[in-house]
């Protein structure tokens, strides 16, 4: 192998010298031959011809010698390449179309690959990332639920599967100090959080268990980004104090610059959880839990152990009914966990882009086939001059590889733009967005597919041309022999139509899903609604009365603003990502297993009117439901139906959260509201006024109903709130319509990409049909002329060509339908409200494709019908 390489290199370097030597050697032989012939008495002329004859083809002998030496390989490569360059240069139209088509396919698929690869396939940027797992509680409906601190404490004590376990929640402190106050995103984490991830601060130290004790001195670890941005990279910041939400925190560490926090990518600082277990908080479902498996412990083994623990409660860890983990716990690798939402969409999109790439390849193959049909004469001459079959194939492959490389180069440019577009379109839950780039893997992918495309795209025409009888190419009137390449081209067009159908059906199904999704009744009126979260920051708000007063005054100020028809606060806002659930215990069903988990909304009176949530029975909450008055609760329609079938829920009594203290009374029933997204039904809900609720929320969502454009009210509302207290942060400003759209972001993302790929596929298929038909019309001009001369009408010819085109389309549609049915499996999780076999979609796509192909057939058909028999017949 090495020797061979050396010879190739030598051949490459000494190409000229070796060629000269060969010529010299053969000339010597010729001369001797001629001399002998002269001695035998031939004339000089005769002697020369005789010598040439004995050689049996001097050029062929030379070729064989070159081949024997391995020189030929390099030699031919240069020659083929140079020839290919000249050829592409001479046919700029063809080259442009082929290169653009390929670059679109390669670029789009590289862009998608560079998104899919880091998210789904590359391991997370942590040491032994496969050992990092995420653990969830299982809610009553079987979905994942946040972990309670109580469960965490129990696992910490009882589980043997983990090197480290950590729980965390979000934290958004306001940093004050010499510079402007700034709202920061952070996390409250238990002490071993960074040990679970396996990343330690580069400067300073990690959290200690002692930092995590309630009321320990405040400490914080900051990200490299925050360190650079706010502290200018000053190392002495470690050990100094900063002020966050009025409290002093000592900076104890700085995370490395490359640290990627996939659990909260925007977090810039961390503080110990310092969990306060008073007031029954230990059993609220509001923490996330991660764990690093002990080395040698597999995921399944850990799952088994968690199951055993969940099923066997011990007296030291008594569990309340709503956190009894009776359904067990869910454990998955962190990577699977953060990608589970986007995985189906990403895989489907990747599949779609590969389909599009395939269609692009088929198109270019078709172009090459059409061209090689035109080049039959050229190939015939080359064969006659001694070119072997393999040599011809290699020539064609060189050309297609050159095309692919050009397409690939341009494709990298397309991929660059594609990635920017992708990031702009990406749904918020897309993890590791920052890792999306054209890295080594993406480059290797692009290079790989480019080479593969070059070979595949070139191989079909190459085999075609060398298979057909090339001597025919030299014969006059060869154009009359349509031959096998037309068959191949037709088959390719059928394939194109079929592939385009698969893509278009998928896009159609997604489109219908989105329509259906937006037709879902959210349970409230989303138009003219502006929403935002108003937070309180500072120790004055430790007092519940102060907090209530601030929100009351803010609400009053907002209501006074012009253009506002109503406003209210709620502890959690539908479609915003909020999810606050509590155990509900009914007086009529005292058994703990009868308890339910329900969404709990602490709202100001007027919330229902502002949101437009219809009242079904009883009354709404009003200004009389204040602290001290009997506690009034509203429950949702489905909850009432399920809990009190056939009986009146009004007057029923219940507890929410801890099962203690005075009972709450159900005073009314309201319509179900979509909380997580339009696609998810989670209808069990309870509503209570903020002042009657046991906890004073420090952050509340404001909903404002406007007379006109809701978004335009933003500055006015913000100023109204700040007129009460200008230091309180306002975040998450969005109209309810934006939230609606965002809640379907993942489907929209998939839809936009599928639509884009589908449209490209449609255009490519149309050009494919057009190309084949117009090629066939050109080749059959004579035949058409004869038909016309024999009395066929123009209409006959028109329908002849149309029929030919539509037969191809029809065949493609039939094959494509099978493919589309199979492919619809892949997007089934993205569908909503439509069957994957939705007949309307299938029919619609067939009509669309047929319509487009009629248009594509029309031009060649019309051209055929205008053939003048007297001209065509005379021409040959």
């Amino acid at each position, binding site marked *: 192998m090495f020797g061979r390489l050396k010879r190739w290199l030598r051949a490459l370097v000494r190409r000229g010298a070796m060629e000269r030597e060969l010529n010299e050697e053969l000339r*010597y032989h010729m001369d001797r031959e001629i001399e002998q012939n002269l001695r035998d008495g031939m004339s000089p002329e005769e002697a020369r011809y005789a010598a040439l004859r004995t050689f049996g083809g001097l050029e062929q002998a030379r070729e064989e010698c070159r081949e024997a030496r391995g020189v030929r390989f390099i030699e031919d490569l240069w020659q083929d390449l140079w020839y290919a360059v000249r050829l592409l240069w001479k046919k700029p139209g063809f080259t442009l179309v082929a290169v653009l088509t390929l670059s679109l396919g390669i670029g789009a698929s590289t862009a998608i690959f560079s998104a899919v690869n880091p998210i789904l396939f590359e391991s997370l940027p942590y040491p032994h990332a496969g050992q990092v797992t995420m653990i969830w509680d299982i809610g009553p409906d079987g979905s994942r639920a946040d972990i309670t601190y109580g469960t965490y404490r129990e696992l910490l004590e009882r589980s043997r599967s983990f090197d480290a376990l950590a729980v965390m929640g979000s934290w958004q402190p306001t940093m004050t100090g010499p510079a402007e106050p700034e709202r920061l995103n952070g996390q409250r984490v238990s002490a071993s959080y960074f040990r679970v991830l396996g990343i330690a601060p580069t400067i300073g130290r990690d959290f200690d268990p002692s930092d995590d004790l309630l009321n320990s001195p405040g400490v914080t670890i900051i990200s490299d980004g925050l360190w650079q941005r706010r502290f200018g990279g000053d190392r002495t910041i470690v050990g100094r104090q900063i002020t966050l939400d009025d409290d002093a925190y000592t900076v104890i560490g700085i995370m490395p610059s490359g640290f990627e926090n996939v659990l909260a990518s925007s977090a810039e600082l961390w503080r110990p959880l310092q969990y306060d277990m008073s007031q029954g908080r230990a059993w609220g479902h509001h923490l996330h839990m991660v764990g690093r498996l002990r080395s040698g412990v597999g995921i399944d083994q850990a799952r088994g152990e968690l199951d055993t623990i969940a099923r066997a409660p011990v007296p030291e860890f008594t569990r309340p009914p709503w956190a009894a983990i009776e359904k067990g716990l869910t454990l998955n690798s962190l990577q699977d966990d953060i990608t589970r939402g986007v995985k189906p969409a990403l895989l489907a999109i990747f599949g779609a882009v590969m389909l599009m790439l395939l269609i692009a390849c088929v198109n270019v193959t078709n172009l090459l086939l059409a061209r090689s049909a035109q080049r039959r004469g050229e190939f015939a001459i080359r064969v006659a001059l001694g070119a072997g079959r393999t040599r011809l194939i290699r020539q064609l492959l060189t050309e297609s590889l050159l095309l692919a490389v050009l397409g690939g180069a341009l494709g990298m440019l397309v991929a660059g733009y594609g990635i920017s577009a992708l990031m702009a379109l990406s749904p918020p839950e897309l993890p590791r967005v920052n890792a999306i780039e054209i890295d080594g893997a993406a480059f290797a992918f692009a290079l790989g597919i480019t080479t593969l495309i070059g070979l595949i795209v070139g191989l079909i025409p190459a085999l075609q041309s060398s298979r057909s009888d090339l001597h025919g190419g030299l014969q006059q009137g060869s154009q009359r022999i349509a031959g096998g390449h037309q068959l191949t081209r037709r088959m390719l067009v059928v394939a194109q139509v079929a592939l385009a159908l698969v893509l278009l059906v998928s896009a159609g199904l997604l489109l219908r899903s989105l329509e259906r999704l937006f037709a879902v009744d959210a349970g409230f009126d989303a138009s003219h609604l502006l929403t935002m979260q108003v937070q309180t920051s500072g120790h004055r708000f430790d007092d519940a009365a102060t907090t209530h007063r601030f929100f009351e005054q803010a609400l009053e100020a907002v209501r006074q603003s012009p253009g506002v028809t109503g406003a209210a606060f709620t502890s959690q806002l539908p479609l915003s990502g909020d999810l606050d659930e509590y155990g509900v215990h009914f007086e009529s069903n005292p058994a703990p297993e009868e308890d339910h988990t329900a969404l709990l909304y602490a709202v100001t009176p007027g919330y229902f009117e502002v949101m437009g949530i219809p009242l079904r029975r009883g009354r709404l909450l009003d200004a009389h439901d204040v602290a001290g008055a009997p506690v009034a609760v509203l429950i949702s329609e489905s909850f009432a139906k399920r809990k009190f079938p056939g009986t009146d829920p009004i007057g029923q009594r219940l507890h929410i959260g801890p099962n203690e203290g005075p009972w709450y009374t159900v005073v009314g029933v309201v319509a179900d509201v979509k909380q997580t997204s339009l696609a998810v039904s989670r209808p069990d809900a309870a509503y209570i006024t903020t002042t009657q609720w046991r906890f004073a929320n420090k952050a509340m969502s404001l909903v404002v109903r406007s007379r006109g454009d809701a978004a335009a009210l933003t500055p006015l509302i913000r100023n109204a709130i700040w007129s009460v207290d200008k230091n309180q942060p306002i975040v998450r400003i969005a109209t309810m319509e934006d939230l609606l759209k965002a809640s379907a972001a993942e489907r929209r993302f998939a839809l936009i990409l599928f639509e884009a790929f589908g449209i490209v596929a449609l255009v490519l298929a149309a050009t494919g049909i057009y190309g084949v038909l117009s090629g066939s019309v050109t080749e059959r001009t004579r035949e058409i002329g004869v038909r016309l001369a024999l009395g066929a009408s123009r209409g006959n010819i028109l329908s002849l060509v149309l029929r030919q085109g539509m037969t191809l389309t029809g065949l493609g549609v039939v094959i494509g339908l099978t493919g589309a049915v199979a492919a619809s499996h892949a997007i089934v999780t993205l569908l909503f409200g439509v069957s994957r076999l939705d007949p309307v979609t299938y029919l619609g796509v067939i009509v669309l494709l047929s319509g487009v192909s009629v248009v594509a057939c029309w031009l060649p058909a019309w051209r055929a019908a205008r053939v003048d028999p007297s001209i065509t017949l005379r021409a040959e």
Partner: protein
Amino acid sequence: MKKQKTDLLQGTLELLVLRLLRSGSLNGWDIMQRIQLVSGEVLSVTPGALYPALHRLEERGLIAAEWGESANNRQAKFYKLTAAGRKQLEAERQTWERFTGAVEAILRDA
């Protein structure tokens, strides 16, 4: 008067070339003449077959080439056997003898 000429079997040419070069270096023209001469003009080889064969042998390292003066004072390319070539010749000769022996035996006795 023309003698009946026999085409060389595939692969036989290389064996003959190796055998001819055992006794010393020769150029292409000489090799061709020798084959005809030694075989009593029964075997003939065309340059179109000979030169590619020479180049193949050289490529495989069985023969080596160098430029030198020919009989009529011209520069010509001379081939000579390498050590590997010598071994190859012995091996191929044995194969050949086994083969022809077997064929002869069948022709005689069958």
